[in-house]
């Protein structure tokens, strides 16, 4: 198929065909990534700019590695976001980067919708590396890739996503993407972090993790931002962990050799216990590797032009 999209902003409005095309491309990219000499000339002369308004080690590094493997030049701009009213606006920053002839801009920003905002004003392609609490499409794509790699076609499989769903762009992107692939998604969390209005995502919701686990092929734990406790969204880490933490015992309730995913970084002992995190069912390191492959695929599809790595 011919790739049409200019930008990767989210999975809500992405077609199943596009998702499959990305996953297929990522398979090839992973083979390249696993070679001892992993460097291609494909994107020689292309410039990729990472613009990160939020601290992120793994996502930014993953994008940088992906671009470098493909031969592109990368620049990273980390912008401390102490106050939105100070300093240059995102609009002006974006225009400046465009004027420097960037081919692809990768944006991580604390405001929902910032990636679309950028894409609407820029000629270069844009990849959303996480916009506020809205979407994190590359994370969901790498999660889906990892699930498929282990489980085969995902149609009819059961995926449980547990944690702070309300504030999670990872949960939103996964809910959209997985639904499109025919997965039965169940979101789990306390009512304060999984309020009724989340039903708009169109997937099952429950506050009872134990009740949701039987039959789950995948259990994904979300990172709990510890400062949410101060806002009164949950009373204590102890109670949160008791109700929603993934432990070996609890994982047995699935009745299957389920796989465990986590977008990282983990709060060990809170949303996931050490033995689960380090156990055989956890594919957390595979997620990281696959993340590079997915990002290679996206960068290639967006700015690879007529080159044909994926013959």
């Amino acid at each position, binding site marked *: 198929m011919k790739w049409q999209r200019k930008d990767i902003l989210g999975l809500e409005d992405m077609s199943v065909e596009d998702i499959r095309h990305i996953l297929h491309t990522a398979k090839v990219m992973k083979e390249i990534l696993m070679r001892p000499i992993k460097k291609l000339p494909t994107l020689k002369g292309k410039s990729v700019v990472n613009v990160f308004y939020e601290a992120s080690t793994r996502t930014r590094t993953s994008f940088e590695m992906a671009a470098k493997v493909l031969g592109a030049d990368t620049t990273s701009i980390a912008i401390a976001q102490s106050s939105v009213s100070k300093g240059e606006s995102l609009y002006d920053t974006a225009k400046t980067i465009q004027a420097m002839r960037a081919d692809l801009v990768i944006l991580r920003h604390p405001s929902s*919708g*910032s990636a679309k*905002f950028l894409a609407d004003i820029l000629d270069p392609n844009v990849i959303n590396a996480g916009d506020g*609490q809205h979407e994190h499409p590359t994370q969901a794509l790498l999660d889906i890739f990892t699930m498929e790699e282990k489980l085969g076609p995902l149609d009819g499989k059961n995926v449980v996503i547990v944690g702070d769903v309300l504030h999670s762009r990872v949960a*939103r992107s996964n809910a959209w993407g997985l639904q499109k692939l025919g997965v039965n998604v169940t979101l789990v969390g306390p009512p304060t972090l999984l309020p009724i*209005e989340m039903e708009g*995502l169109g997937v099952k919701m429950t506050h009872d993790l134990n009740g949701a686990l039987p039959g789950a092929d995948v259990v994904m734990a979300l990172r709990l931002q510890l400062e949410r406790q101060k806002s009164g969204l949950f009373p204590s880490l102890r109670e949160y962990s008791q109700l929603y933490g993934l432990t070996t015992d609890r994982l047995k309730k699935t009745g299957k050799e389920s796989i465990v995913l986590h977008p990282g970084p983990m709060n060990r002992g809170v949303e996931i216990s050490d033995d689960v995190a380090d156990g055989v069912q956890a594919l957390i390191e595979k997620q990281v590797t696959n993340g590079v492959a997915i990002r290679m695929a996206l960068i290639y599809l967006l700015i690879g032009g007529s080159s044909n790595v994926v013959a």
Partner: protein
Amino acid sequence: MWWLKDVWVIDPSQKLSAPRDVLVKGGQVLEISSSMTEEEVSVKAQGEAVDTVDGKGKFVFPGLIDVHTHLREPGQEDKEDILSGSRAAVRGGFTTILAMANTQPVIDSRALVEYVRMQGDRAGFAHVHPIGTVTKGMQGTELVEMATMKEGGAVAFSDDGKNIQNAEVMRLALEYAKLTGLLIISHCEDKDLAGEGQMRRGVSSARMGLKGIPASAESVIVARDLMLAEETGGRLHLAHISTTESVDLIRQAKARGVNVTAEVNPHHLIFCDEQLGITDTFLKVNPPLGSRADRESLIEGLRDGTIDMLATDHAPHTQAEKSRPFAEAPFGIASLETALSAVWENLVVPGRISMDRVIEAWSVTPALRFGLQGGSLVAGAPADMVLFDPDFSEVIEPATLVSKARNTPFLNKTLQGFPVMVWVEGRLVQRNRIVL
């Protein structure tokens, strides 16, 4: 002298909605009657030249009175000033506007009240009346010198933009304002419930990952203020009502005889949260756009009189401020130039509400409740008057807007039905959409 021939006159103050001829002389309405002959008119002109306007197919009504505008002067003249705002007003059919007090500095002293009034007079378009704050510095703690500010020209008191969080301060304000006979206008928003919210809390906010403002952020304060008005017997006006629960509370309070009126903004009658896209900062407004059900409740409330008035909440902002990611853009819609057209096209034409009710709610009632000139075309009344052409259509473009602001959801869209002539005290200030 002006002679408007064969025009449909809507004047709810005299229960009139019928084709008539209108004569305006010496800044006042001289006469409204069934068709006149040229001889009769020339006799009444007493030698004065007669400007004749063919009013066939058009409406004439008392100039609209907007009790809720943000003119941004003093202090934020990059967004708007009193001159540009009052020009925008007459372009949109408003002959009287009330300027909210949340400027920089806030209007909390007689000197500042006089300044706003003077700037309005200097501008010389719509009548501009200052609203003073309720509390000094809008800090929500100490009351302003209400009696003194009334002498300076304040026509109401409001900390609009902020809610008065302390219920005792609100109670005292309702008590003390009795000295002046003026209204306390409440911006009902519980700060803690609203939090850092960006839009109405609901399926749309959850889907887009934008922090939500629950409907209760408004209605709990509406309930509180109604109780306080009932207990004190104070005069209360509720700004920009946006939820079903608020409408129900007001309806019940009115049935008990509470001295309360309420306003609704056109955008809450036209848009709802599900229409909001993640980069649509021109629909970012406070209170936020509600649900479809809220919109229906508001229309019903306006129809049955639970909601007394329409008001724009004209909130101009610069393009730079609105050209930001949603959470970083300021709240507000600039609407003086589009509000009447938008209401005509979206509510009157589809038959949701009558034009007679619109004029009552946007002219007659505000004049009576706030004690202002205007709101009537009875003989002898000042000729604050609008000629409205339901067939006139216009693309809303930056080049034609006279407000400094362009933060309107109608930008680059076509609206139909516009004021084509506007008089302030008999003086023509707008003709064919051009401010004179």
